[in-house]
């Protein structure tokens, strides 16, 4: 099974990855090889089998919700400390909205 360059570029766009032409070519081969191997899952009859999103434990063992009690937030300064670019308490990014 091989992915075409066009399919690779489409997926790269979905993933927001810039790939060089050489990377696209390599990716097409590598992904093709892996996807071919993965086809073996079709050997298995999984009708009636529940999909498993994660390891499930009983209610006594985990609880996904906690009490709605506010906690101290990280704070603006700490949150912006690793910003690539920031200004006036915000992360700044290239213009999104065209005038």
């Amino acid at each position, binding site marked *: 099974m091989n992915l075409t360059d066009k399919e690779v570029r489409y997926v790269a766009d979905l993933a927001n990855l810039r790939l060089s032409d050489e990377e696209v070519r390599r990716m097409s081969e590598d992904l093709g090889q892996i996807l071919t191997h993965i086809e073996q899952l079709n050997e*298995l009859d999984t009708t009636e089998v529940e999909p498993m999103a994660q390891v499930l434990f009983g209610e006594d*063992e985990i609880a996904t919700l906690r009490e709605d009690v506010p906690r101290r937030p990280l704070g603006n300064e700490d949150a912006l*400390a*690793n910003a690539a670019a920031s200004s006036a308490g915000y992360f700044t990014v*290239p213009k999104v909205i065209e005038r």
Partner: protein
Amino acid sequence: MQIPESIPSLTISLIRDGLASKAYTATDLANAVLAFAQSENAATNAYLTFSLERALKAAAKVDAQIASGRYAGTLAGVPIAVKDVIVTKGLRTTCGSHILQDYIPPYDATAVFRLEAEGAIIIGKTNCDEFAMGSSNENSAFGPVRNPKALDRVPGGSSGGSAAAVAQGTAVVALGSDTGGSIRQPASFCGVVGVTPTYGRVSRYGLTAFASSLDHIGPFARNVEDSATVLQAIAGRDDFDSTSAFTPVDDYHALMKHPVRGLKLGLPREYFEGLGAETGDVVHAAIQQLQALGCELQEISLPHTKYALSCYYIIATAEASSNLARYDGVRYTTRNDGETLSDMYRNTRGCGFGAEVKRRIMLGTYVLSAGYYEAYYRKAQQVRTLVTRDFSNAFEEVDAIIAPVSPFPAFKIGAKIDDPLAMYLSDVYTLTGDLSGVPCMSVPCGESREGLPIGLQISTRHFDEATMFRLAYNYEQSIAR
């Protein structure tokens, strides 16, 4: 004051005695281990960052507590290394990636917090495969880690740096992470103990997410007891991680000292079929030793083993593609500019991520994309149920599953890097543990004819780390020279 023991032979109990008898202080020990670690690092590249200030501050606190007769913790003065996918407040955390090479976390992972609360001394952050994706530590943006037992070979991955540090003696214990085998396999390759606890046993808060339903934090040590001490300190419910379990944490030290006579051990035929003699002979000798200790052996089947690799590489990459979407040039330091926002995202991620990370993000994006979701992702989730059922069925008959960790010992650096699928096949025996969430560990059980370490894998029921440690400890003690 001089440290009387050789640094690589230090254990938690030797340190406890050394501090109690005032042979040395925690500050002496921290200085000595830091100096040793720094001098050895050129050979293995195990560490990416040393934390002198933090270590000496923690050591001073331990010394002050001891001096005033206060209890200083179960890990007082113990030098520990932390894999660089685990955040440490104020201490650079790179995840082995260029995209985070300047990232300074504003918080500590819960596991880090708990270790320091028990007096542990963090001496540095260890090298790893980028974002924990790899089986050889060759995918780090900061150079590969070399196996201290054979410098032309890989230490295993992705927690290669942590395994190497413990094997080399530049840390007494270390934290690693395991998503597909990243603790057990490097433990096996480097000849140290590596523990992957039950999913949810240790909080993932502060573990940079790779695959959230598969990620675990766990300890490396040079002996079973030390690995249990570390797990004891970090295990238990954390409100910051809703997937962490309320299940009480057993007293591992007490329970592991019980004899193993009468325990039923399952040997899964799928893990031994086609296993080369180089590894097979050593693992079989270990199994015979367990039998000599009174364990009963039984052949079992985990019939869906051969599908685990495909299942894992769909689920893990799908989850990774989602988790790594956040590295987009906005909040986490690195940015490569672009005219539009979209260009900026694509340039940043195209430049900042290495080849393996990109490969996995691409695969994950593909299997989740419209038209493919059912065929791949949903199918893989169903297969995961089948893999997990294999384990619960097996545990109706046996108390533990014994198997090799890896089909082969440490391979040469560069041997598999150009063949992604061949690299992925290194993990065939470890992936199933992550998919099913059962606790597993690797304990050293011998060497190949070339002198390369080989580990024995022990897996038990969910939350039954006590039996797992019991088997490992009894085995280890019975072969101690």
